[in-house]
């Protein structure tokens, strides 16, 4: 892949442990908006950005965070391969100042591989708050590479960073390729291999690093190296000869092949510890004092689960209550614009059909989507981002891991579910944080059981119209929030059930090993979160929905106005679906709305309304009471609403999600299963609810 725009662009890789602020640094330097959040594994794909300083132009590549370059998971492999073979001019290793010792392991590994390394100690403000003192000059001396302290969240601290980067690029000073001295027998073995490998690789890869990798046999990496160098080193007779010499030397020191990995890692860790001891002064008890207090409350045996549920319900309550008024206001404004548009078309003498298609079709659905969807999204997304920023999400995974373990899947699935609340497609991509392919597939296949943002407003609108009752104000909104929480819990329950079922049938296996980092809590940047989540997420999602809404509006209008015989195409289709839909407590229009809503779930309710409105008029647009009347006049009961809500929670994933699933799994079979599972679950549940209710009511 070619990254550079011009020959003298500098290609820089940004490496680092997960969740150290690489993406924040990247965003602030390039002005791009790679999404960030306080949990490990946020960046799953490399992002590329461009920025200029007074002296140079840079191409930055934000690679996925890894603890080590001895890859285990696909994204760690991607990170390592970019550092090995990406031909970067230099690497910036971003470290977390509050956890420098662990981070130094990756710094040392990167230094063995890349001849030009700049270390950026990020989150200096957090370190200061925790009374952690870092002697950057000492660190730089010990590592023998330039070191700079930053607070990537604060743009001002980046001026100094760019200056240092320019100086670093101009200095042309190479960093040492042997930052670690290993145990004596290993060093003697390396001494045999290094000179030979230096000759063989012609400097394309560092000899010492190659020697270490040949000793620590990693067949995947060896293949990559062979492709890159155009020769297979381990089949070269001279190299083979040297390798067996090295091994007999190691054997004499009682070192077995299996121990090589331990020996290398121990060497790295020891050196990291040494450097840390010289450069950092901290009281770890004190540094973690506040985290400890919060954790004791948020992950406690008694309060852990209730707090989780209360938080969820509280977020929903804020969303429902807050969205009510702006929703009505928006729809008033948008529908008065519709009148203006109609007058405009009339003044221009436009043909009536053109007006009807564009205004009554495309514009009206669009207006519905915006007024019903925008306010809840604009409240939910920022709230969710605040939670994400604070570091609470990994605690959810920690609290729920036991249940996932019972289902033979991975606790990190809780994180991907949380992402699914925003957008299922994002949740599916996020499943890359799960190492085991089997558990990753389970997480992908069950992600759409969590209602995404496109479905929330549908659920809240139905709850408010049919279940919250006539109780006014606070009581009714609390009731709605609790009901919505119940619906979401049903989705979570279905996730557990399906995961359990999958891991006992088509995806049999035992849970793999699991380590999850619980990052320090960070104070969320409220202002920035609001701005970013509205501009990046809300408008993005709304834009996608609008793209689907306008054509759907035209389609619905055409269907209502193309007549076959005496009835419109719309009523024919709805009538055709009616008997099927009736089994599941729905009606033909609802089912059709879900089918037409395949490109984006946001347009389901607007399409339903459009279809009903073809036959009736709405007295007061924007008022939920008027909407309720409209629905009731078309035969809706509480049961219809309940079944529609269940079906909204459990039906096929939208087209974007399915495409993402296909990309992630590379298999039509799994994509089809991901379509089938929630659909079958939804139909069965709706069927049961509708028929049991009919018996009793």
């Amino acid at each position: 892949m070619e990254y550079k725009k011009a020959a003298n662009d500098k290609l820089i890789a940004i490496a680092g442990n997960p969740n150290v602020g690489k993406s924040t640094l990247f965003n602030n330097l390039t002005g791009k908006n790679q999404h960030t959040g306080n949990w490990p594994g946020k960046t799953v794909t490399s992002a590329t950005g461009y920025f200029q300083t007074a002296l140079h132009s840079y191409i930055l590549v934000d690679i996925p965070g890894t603890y080590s370059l001895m890859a285990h998971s696909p994204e760690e492999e991607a990170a390592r391969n970019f550092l090995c073979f990406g031909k970067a001019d230099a690497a910036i290793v971003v470290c977390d100042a509050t956890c420098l010792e662990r981070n130094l392991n990756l710094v040392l590994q990167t230094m063995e591989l890349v001849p030009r390394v700049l270390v950026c100690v990020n989150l200096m403000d957090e370190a200061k708050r925790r009374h952690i003192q870092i002697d950057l000059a000492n660190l730089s001396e010990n590592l023998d590479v330039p070191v700079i302290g930053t607070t990537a969240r604060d743009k001002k601290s980046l001026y100094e960073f760019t200056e240092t980067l320019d100086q670093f690029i101009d200095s042309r000073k190479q960093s040492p390729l042997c930052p670690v001295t290993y145990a004596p027998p290993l060093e003697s073995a390396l001494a045999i291999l290094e000179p030979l490998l230096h000759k063989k690789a012609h400097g394309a890869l560092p000899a010492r690093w190659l020697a270490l990798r040949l000793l620590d046999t990693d067949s995947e990496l060896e293949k990559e190296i062979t492709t890159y160098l155009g020769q297979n080193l381990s089949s070269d007779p001279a190299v083979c000869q040297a390798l067996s010499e090295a091994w007999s030397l190691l054997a004499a020191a009682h070192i077995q092949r299996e121990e090589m990995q331990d020996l290398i890692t121990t060497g790295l860790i020891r050196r990291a510890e040494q450097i840390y001891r010289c450069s950092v002064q901290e009281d770890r008890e004190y540094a973690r004092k506040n985290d400890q207090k919060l954790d004791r409350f948020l992950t406690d045996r008694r309060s852990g689960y209730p707090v989780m549920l209360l938080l969820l319900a509280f977020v929903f309550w804020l969303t429902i209550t807050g969205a009510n008024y702006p929703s009505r206001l928006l729809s008033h404004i948008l529908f008065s614009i519709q009148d203006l548009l109609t007058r405009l078309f009339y003044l221009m003498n436009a043909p009536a059909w053109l007006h009807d298609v564009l205004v009554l079709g495309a514009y009206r659905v669009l207006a519905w989507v915006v007024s019903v969807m925008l306010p809840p999204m604009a409240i939910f997304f920022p709230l969710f981002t605040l939670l994400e920023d604070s570091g609470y999400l990994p605690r959810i995974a920690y609290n729920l891991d036991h249940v996932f373990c019972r289902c033979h899947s991975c606790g990190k699935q809780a994180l991907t579910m949380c992402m699914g609340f925003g957008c299922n497609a994002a949740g599916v991509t996020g499943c890359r944080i799960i190492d085991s392919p089997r558990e990753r597939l389970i997480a992908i296949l069950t992600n759409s059981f969590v209602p995404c943002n496109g479905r929330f407003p549908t659920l809240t609108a139905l709850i408010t119209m049919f279940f919250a009752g006539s109780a006014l104000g606070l009581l009714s909104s609390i009731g709605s929030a609790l009901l919505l929480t119940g619906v979401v819990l049903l989705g979570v329950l279905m996730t557990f059930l399906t995961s359990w079922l999958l891991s006992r049938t088509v995806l049999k296996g035992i849970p793999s090993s699991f380590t999850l980092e619980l990052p320090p809590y960070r104070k969320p940047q409220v202002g920035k979160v609001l701005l970013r989540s509205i501009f990046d997420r809300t408008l993005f999602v709304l834009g996608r929905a609008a793209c689907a809404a306008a054509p759907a509006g035209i389609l619905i209008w055409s269907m209502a106005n193309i007549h076959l015989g005496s009835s419109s195409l719309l009523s024919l289709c709805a009538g055709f679906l009616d008997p099927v839909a009736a089994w599941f407590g729905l009606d033909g229009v609802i089912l059709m709305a879900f089918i037409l809503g395949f490109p984006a779930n946001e347009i389901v309710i607007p399409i339903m309304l459009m279809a009903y409105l073809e036959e009736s008029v709405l007295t007061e647009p924007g008022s939920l009471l008027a909407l309720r009347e409209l629905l009731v006049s078309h035969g809706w009961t509480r049961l219809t609403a309940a079944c529609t809500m269940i079906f909204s929670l459990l039906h096929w994933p939208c087209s974007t999600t399915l495409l993402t699933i296909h990309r992630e799994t590379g298999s039509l079979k799994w994509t089809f299963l991901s379509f089938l599972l929630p659909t079958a679950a939804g139909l069965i549940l709706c069927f049961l609810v509708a028929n049991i209710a009919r018996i009793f009511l």
Partner: protein
Amino acid sequence: MSKHPCLNDMNPGQSAHVIKLNSSGSIRRRLLDLGLTEHTQIQCVGKSPSGDPAAFLIRGAVIAIRAIDGKDILVDL
């Protein structure tokens, strides 16, 4: 032969040193990458509501480890 206690025997607040890492395969590599080599100091900082997994402070970072993996990490409690 004396049986060493393992990670699961640690209660919140207790500290110990790693004596031996009996894990194998990918979890061994992962734990080593996190800095869990022999002699490393480790502190149990809490347990999840169900008791499993538990959280440990390892070289300045808090890592959750399941009991099934914790039993292979022997400590000098």
